[in-house]
């Protein structure tokens, strides 16, 4: 490991946040595939009269669409996960949404996906933890 002679620490370079374009493209592709699969299933029922194969095809298409619509993006907290609440910056709490009773801890880390600096907040009575972006 390289040793630095300087006494002042050099700030670490900011992490490159991941691009959401790839996920958006995958969602569009899957939504298209799901829609086409449903149409094929409907076509099988209407044109060929093959009701069982058509229904199975429609169910597969519907499952793909449901998976795309209800896919969870980030973990925010145990409680938010139960209610499927939307995560804030860096996968933490939305700005100004920190419940009362939480106090800041010294636990800080950089979220690898967004590059945001996150601080952990703790509710001492329950042990609940929350994450808030600081920059």
């Amino acid at each position, binding site marked *: 490991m390289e040793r630095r002679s300087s006494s002042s620490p050099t700030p670490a370079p900011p992490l490159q946040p991941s691009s959401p374009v790839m996920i958006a493209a995958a969602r569009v592709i*899957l939504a298209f595939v799901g829609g086409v699969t449903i149409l094929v299933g409907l076509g099988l029922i209407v044109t060929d009269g093959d009701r069982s194969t058509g229904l199975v095809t429609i169910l597969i298409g519907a499952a793909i669409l449901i998976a795309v619509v209800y896919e969870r993006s980030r973990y925010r907290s*145990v409680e938010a996960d139960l209610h499927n609440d939307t995560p804030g910056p860096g996968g933490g709490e939305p700005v100004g949404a920190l419940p009362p009773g939480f106090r800041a801890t010294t636990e800080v880390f950089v979220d690898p*996906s967004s590059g945001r600096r996150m601080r952990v907040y703790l509710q001492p009575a329950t042990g609940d933890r929350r994450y808030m972006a600081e920059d």
Partner: protein
Amino acid sequence: MIIATTPSVGGYRVTETKGHVFGLVVRSRGLAGNLAAGLRSLVGGEIHEYTSLLEDTRRQAIDRMVQNATLMGANAVLSMRFDSSEIGQTMSEIVAYGTAVVVVPDAGAPAAAE
């Protein structure tokens, strides 16, 4: 709540050991995330979708471990470790575990941040 990977923490002494404590979680990235990760793996480099998945899984495992330690009446978890495995190739399991203890500031020891 102090979480340390060491068996003791500077500035504190253990007065009571509550026992082992853990937080376990299994998460999956989802259909679109897995497809995006598969496409990204074709060109190489960091797979951000899975980095995000493991980061979130780590957070949730620690959250559950701290909740369990609080329930046990502990104010610190010592010798904390992570263990991980996969289920069905698309699901990630992470367990955070350690020893739940009660610590008090030790007047004779150098001060340490919480």
